[in-house]
Each structure stands twice: as C-alpha cells, then as structure tokens.
C-alpha cells in the first residue's frame, strides 16, 4: 500500500478539499470534484495529483486513474493557456469542421491533441458540443464560438496570441469570429483550460470564486 506521505497541496486547497469531502456520505463519491482541484493545483492532472486524490478519498491511485481517464475534460497532459476544442461530430463535419480543424492546427502550428511550445494554445477535436444549430462550432476554454470558417478560425488563433485576453467570453468571440448563432449562451464565465469550472460550483470546486 501507499506510504502515508504529506499532502503537496496548499493549505487553501486542502481546506477546499475538506469542504468537498464533507458533502458526501461516502468519501469515494468526492473523487470527481477533487480531481478538478488536483488539476487546478498543478495546471493539469499529474500522477502526483491523482495519488493525492486517492489518499483523500480512500481509493488506490489505479482506481482514481480509471475514473480520470474516462473523462476527456480531465487533462492529463500539460495544457496551454487557451484550449481550442474543435467539434468534428456529424453536423459540424457536414458543414466543414474538418477544414476548420485543419486551419486551426495549421495556424497554431500543432496537430490536434498537442500544445504549442510556448504553452499558449492546445488544439483538440471533440465530439458534439451541443451547438449543432450553429455548426461548425468550436470552444475556447469551454466558451463557445459558432459558425466559424477556416479564415475566422485562423483569426481567432492570431487574436488569442496577440491580444492574450485575461479571460475569454462567448459573446466577445462570437462577435469577432462567429457567424450563425443557435441561441443565446448563458452568462459569460471566467474559466481557464483546466478550471475552475463554474458548472461544478454546486459541488464546491470553485469555492464560490470562479
């Protein structure tokens, strides 16, 4: 079994972890929110982060890895400041997603699944992101842009590099790079590529503090 080593987490993160654990009658139920904490702590989900979560919830690291590796949104590799997720599912594909993805890869200088050397942009292709009405669609740090073309996608990447926005917002990006829009997308949220995840606020991952 694992040696009981000291926590690597900051006191604040540990306090947050304690509060998350307190929400569940079974410790192991807290594995997912704690994985977000671990990812936010290290910039992505590291083996050390998974071991730490395992100790908190009383599972083995192998079991935690099993959960973490099921979800693509737990990034287990270094992820750039901006995560560009291009949808390649059927609606988007029919309306030119492959060209959009190729343009993004070319402009970013990395193939899907990888991060540029500067650590600014990570490109990935994803399954349907629920924006079929505005296909082809992509997301930057999970903020949606609909109706992109290969050209506007290139502009988007250049803009991310040059303007280096503190936080990206759907409305702003849609204005600049989008065309068709399926419907109005909620309130802007201030998120990074690996969290915090406002959608998980009820589970305590953001600590009321997105």
């Amino acid at each position, binding site marked *: 079994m*694992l040696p009981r080593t000291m926590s690597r987490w900051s006191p604040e993160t540990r306090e947050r972890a304690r509060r998350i654990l307190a929400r569940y009658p079974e410790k192991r139920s807290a594995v997912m929110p704690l994985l977000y904490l671990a990812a936010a702590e290290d910039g992505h989900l590291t*083996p050390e982060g998974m071991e730490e979560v395992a100790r908190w919830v009383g599972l*083995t690291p192998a*079991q935690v890895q*099993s959960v973490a590796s099921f979800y693509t949104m737990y990034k287990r590799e270094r992820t750039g400041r901006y995560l560009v997720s291009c949808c390649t599912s059927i609606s988007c594909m029919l309306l030119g997603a492959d060209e959009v993805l190729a343009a993004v890869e070319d402009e970013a200088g990395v193939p899907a699944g990888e991060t540029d050397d500067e650590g600014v942009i990570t490109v990935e292709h994803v399954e349907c992101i629920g924006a079929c009405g505005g296909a082809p669609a992509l997301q930057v740090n999970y903020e949606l842009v609909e109706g992109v073309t290969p050209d506007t996608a290139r502009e988007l990447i250049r803009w991310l590099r040059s303007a280096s926005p503190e936080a990206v917002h759907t409305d702003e990006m849609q204005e600049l790079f989008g065309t068709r829009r399926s419907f109005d997308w909620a309130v802007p949220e201030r998120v990074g590529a690996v969290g915090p995840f406002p959608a998980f606020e009820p589970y305590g991952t953001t600590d009321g503090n997105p």
Partner: protein
Amino acid sequence: MSDHVTVTIDGRKLEVPAGELLIEAAQEHGTYIPRFCWHPRMKPVGMCRMCLVELETPRGPAIVTACTTPVSDGMVVHTRNETVQRMQEGVLEFLLINHPLDCPVCDRGGECPLQDHVMAYGPGESRFVEEKRHFEKPIPISELVLLDRERCILCARCTRFSEEISGDPLIEFTDRGNGVHIATFPDLPFSSYFSGNTVQICPVGALTATAYRFRARPWDLEAVESTCMHCTAGDRINLQASHNEVVRILGVDVEPTNQGWLSDRCRFGFQYVGSPDRLTVPLIRDAEQGHTEVTWSEALDLAATRIGEVLAGSGGQSVAVLGGARLTNEDAYALSKFARVVLGTNHVDAQMDDGLDPQFLAATVDRALISDLDSAKAILVWGPDLKEEHPTLYLRVRRAAQELGAALVVVHPRRTGLDDRATHKLTYRPGEGADLLTELVAGSGRASQARQALAEGPVVGLVGRTGYGEDPRLAEAVAAFVRTLPDARILPLARRANIYGALDMGLAPTLLPGRVSVGGEGARSIAEAWGGLAEHPGLDTRGILEAAAAGDIEVLFLVGADPLRDVPDGALARRALERVPFVVAIDQFLTDSSRLADVVFCADGFAEKEGTVTNLEGRVQKVNRIVPGPGQTRPDWSILDDLARRLGVELGFGSAEAISKEIADVAPAYRGVTWDRLDWEERDGIVVPDGGEAPLRFVPADTPGTRAGGDLVLHLARVMYDDGVTVRHSPSLAGLAPGAAVHLHPDDAARLGLASAETARVVTEQGEATLPIRLDDTLHRGVVYVPFNQPGMPPLGPGPAVTVTPA
C-alpha cells in the same frame, strides 16, 4: 417448498432454490450456459454478454444475461434456441474483432475458455477485416504477472478479484471507451500477495505468470490433486508437471479451505522442488575437506555407529531432534517413534521456538472450522498478521467482514492487512498485551467498543503469537477469553507447513501421537504398541539449544530444520550447533545449519511423496506425488527405518501407506483416517475430533506479561517473503523479500535523534544489527518493528528489550 421455485429450462421443468442466479441453477441441472465474466466466487457484473438467454414473458420474448438474473417462479428459459445461438455467435464474433488469433503461441491455448467457446458456440467465420487493436506486449503488471492487452476481453475478472477478494485494487480499466485496457498506476505495480489468482481466472491468455510462461502446453501436463504445504490452512491445489518437473500449481475450489484461491507464495513457491541446489546424494563432513559425497550405506553406518556410542554412554537424554514440520504425517510419525523408541528421547520439537504450547495448538477445545468464519457474527484476530502468515485465511476473514457482515476486531502491535476491514482495531506494545486483555475482558477503557462487538455470537477467535517479542502464554489467555464469548470457536494459529500434523504425531516434548500427553493416560497403550517409550521429561527447542550450548547434547538431529535462520535467537542456535559433537541432518538443501552437520541425508520433499497432512482445523488431507525426487533422495521414513535397523531396532515401516494404517491404530484422534477414504469419498479431508488430554493452562485472570525494561519493545515478526529455503530457492519469489529494515514511529525516530538518519544500530540481549530505517506512523508508539529472517540480516534475537541508536 416455499424456498424453491419451478423454472423451465429448455423444456425441462426444474425445482431450484429461490433467488439463485439462472446461470447457477441451470448448471446444477446439467445445462451449461457459456460465460466469461461470471465467476462463482465473485459478484456478477454482466460485462461480457456471453451468457445471454431468452425468457418467455407476458410481453413476449426477452433477452437477459443469465449471470445477473435470479430465477423466479414459472420462469421459462431457452438457452440454445435459434435466437440465443445467433446472439452467442454475435458476441463471439465481436470479441474476436480485437482478440488476436495467436493461440499457437499463447499459454492459454488448449485450455482457453475463449478458444473453447468459439469452437462450441462461435460462427466459424468472421466478417471483420479491419485491423485489430495493437499494444506493446506483454507488459509486467507485477514481478510475477505479465499482461498482454491485445488478448484481454475486458471481463473484469481480474479487477474484481483485486477489489472484492484480495482487497488491493491496484489494477483497473483505464481509458474507458474505445481504447479501454487494464492498467496499473505508473510505478505502482500490482504487487499483491495474490496476483497469481488473476492468471488462473483470466478467461484468455491476457494474464500470464512469469513462472509458467512458455514452459509447457496443457496437453503435455500431468496433474494430480494435492494439498499445499506452505502455510497451515491446507489449501487444495492441482499440482502439474511436465517431463518430471513441477511447472505449475493451480488452486482447486473447495468450500472448506481455499475456495480456489492461493497466495503467490503457495502458487509459485514450488520452484524450489526442481532447484539445481537440491541435495541428491548423502554427505559426510570431515574436518579437512568439508562435505564429501558418500553412498547411503556409508552415511547410515557412520551415523549408526556414532549414535550407538552415545546411546550406550550417556543415553537418550543427550540426544535431541529438531524439526519435522515439513514432513507428512507418516514421516512425522516415523520420526516421533524413532526418537522415542530408538533414540529413547523426549527432546523432540517441530516448533522451532515459535513458543506456543503444543497442547494449545494441537489439542484446542472448541476448535473452529475455517468455514465457521462464514457464519460468524463477530471475529477476533489477535495473533500474527494473517495477510503475511496465513494468506488464504486472510481472504476468508476479509470476505466475512466485507461481504458477510461480521464484526471484525483486530489486535496487533502494528498495522495488518485486515485493518481496512476491521470494525475495531487495537494496537499495543508487545509485553503490554496482558493489560489490554484485562481491559477487553472487562469491556473497559479503549477496549470497551471492541468488547461490545464481540457480544453477539457465533464468535470465531483466531489466536496466535503476534511476533517473537510477545509472551507466548498470552495467546492461551486470549483463547481462554474467547471461550467465554457466546457460541465461540477458536482457531489456534501457527504457521509452519504441517506443524499441526507434526504435533499430532508427537513431535513435541510433551506429546505423543494422537495428542496423548507424555506420561498421561494414553501413553501406556502407545508404549505397549511401540514396545517402550522414553521416560525422562523432554526439552523444547529453546531448552534443547540451551542444553546443547552447555554441552549436554551429544547427538542432534535436524529434520528439515535450519535453526540458524529459523529460530528467533539465531546466536543461541549457532552456539548450540557449534558445540554438539555429532549433528545429523535430513534435508533437501544444504542450509546454513546443515552445512555444520556431520552427516547429511538427502530426502524426498513436497510433490515427491505421498502422504497426509493436517491443517489448522485438524483436517487431514492427502498430499500426492507427481515427480520423483532428484538423484538418490529417499523418503524420511525409510531413512529412519534403515538407521533404526542398524541400531538394532525393527520399526516395521513397510511403506508410507502402512505407516498411515499404524497411525490409525495407535493415535486415538486418527482412528478411521485411511488413504483410501481420503483418495475417494473424502477428497476434502477428514476433520479429526478436537481436544486432547491437557486443557489450556492460562486464563485471563492470571494473564502473564513479560515486560521489557526500557521504553522500546521489539516486534520481530514474519512476513510472507523471507530468506527461508523455499523462497530462496524459488527464483520467481526470491527477489520479493522486502529486505532487512527497522521500522520506527516518526515520533520515536525524532525522540531518538533518528528523524533524518538512514540507518540505525539495533541491539537486543541476543544480537545486534545495523539496519535501514523505515518510518511507519501506524506503529504503536514505543514499538520497534523488524521483519524476521530477511536476506543478509544478522540474527537479532527476539528481544523484547531493544535499543535503537544512530549507526
């Protein structure tokens, strides 16, 4: 019959127990439903879909998995109609999309459930032409097990085993989805004591054992059922050999003992049998040349002459016999009779200073069966760490606590493998067990909740010595306490091989065959049958070694015994062996001790002879022969028979089976135990009646306690992999010993100025060693834990007083 329901399976109306799973109910009535993921000892998951059957329901036919569907009254089931056949074909065609057809080079080929099912239920041809999945192959998931991910059919048997049965879930499905595969965490291998079981239950060749990989094909194997002789649970095994070499051991699923499981030590620890280091000829030592090879008659003549001289001079009092726990009952009986009748001595001990009273181990009253654990309401484990010393018993206790709802109280000086399942865990310093027992008896102090947990019966107490620093009488006092609990039964714990059989055959200073006390009632009839008995009081191992070191023992027999490594006080053993003028060893290897012997007889060992063994319940089972012994080895009984004849006594042993008949005649507890019954109608063994002539001596009221002087106490305890002969000579296991180390609580380490030190000097009354430090915050404060007999470790002695200083 309200607890039964009527179901119709393939047109046959059957009465089956209510609530049973369809797959089981069908099988009990001769209808085999194919399966991969379902395993009778684990919970169903319905992963593989191989067991699909069709039910007739009011809403029309329904397809269900037979492994997750309980029978219900009036159920009508089809297991082989056209729909089902088409589904079976479909499932198999899908499984073969990715499964490689490398059967000719796969260890499983010839005994592979997937191969068999494809032949029996498959479509015969695949429509898939796409490329199969590829992985690096094979990858080690532990020192003993390799994983070929391409072959895996994702049945989750191995992962469920590790979680449900062995309790160390270090393998899991990873990258669930199209790329799903079994994986360990990086740098955290599946180093389970039970990893080999996953190889046995994997329905394909995805998991293979390094010890067996590419060694044989199933159709080349000879096999015989036997009993494992590593620990004392008496696990049923299937012993398999190819070309006169043992190549594999599988667990046999029997209800009374191991339920199919084995520890890796039992599964892979057979390799020593075929070791090139085995003794193959008798040896004689002379001062100049060391050991030289001789003929059997030369060796026997020399031994007989020297023994004869000593017997004529100072008599049986100055002759002693150590060892015998590795023998079968037949050989142990022969040794017991040889010692009492030919050597005229009661200085006989198979328990290499493990310290427990032989009467307590062999003659416990209210002795439990292993299966009593399944129905226990509460279980008390106050003894060795079961995971280290009684691995399959550990699985059974774990299951009782985890799946069957028993309350589990564990008492031990440090963490044990059962702690995560214990409802109450108490730690203490060796030597202070008596105080804790007093609290437990009174239900006071920190033991009050544990006491409450033991209030409802049936209770099973597993009682033994936690380590060598513990007063051995404590275990008896604990057992006496257990007897006061409601509906209580006791399993006395000792760990060496056939120790219970050896004690039952009288390999103890105070016991004669059949648990008859030396000097007791029954001794007279044994004296009559044997034509004489030794008269003087016998010494136990410690007494024998002390007498030998003082020069009072002139001939010492070591029978499969290596006191230099195997008794806690190794330094005393060395003084003894160096002082005894004539040492006779009967052994399979030249051990540190037999290297000092004047005559060494080479003996047959496990898998090379037939006989019986007795487990910790008192269950007598057969061990069987599958290979011949190497070179000129002989069975122990026949060596002793020849030696006796040269000393003018006819022991009359014709064969091991003849000896078993003599045991049944002479040893009261063994009446009616015959090889015939064990081979045929009683394959799961015969449990001989419990009890003996002498009751427990110690009760909680007068609990003893040896207190160490200083503030530190040594906890010297055995672990699964040590430097004993069987592990050392089994290449697969030899590297697994954790290594010599001293474990300290971080607080103690800080107090001793060792917080950042790498090594420490550990000194007891009997020895000293410089050992690497391991910090362990599960230790009770003041306890210094050292695993016993690790490679390269000098004898430290049992303590219990110990000092630890910077090296």
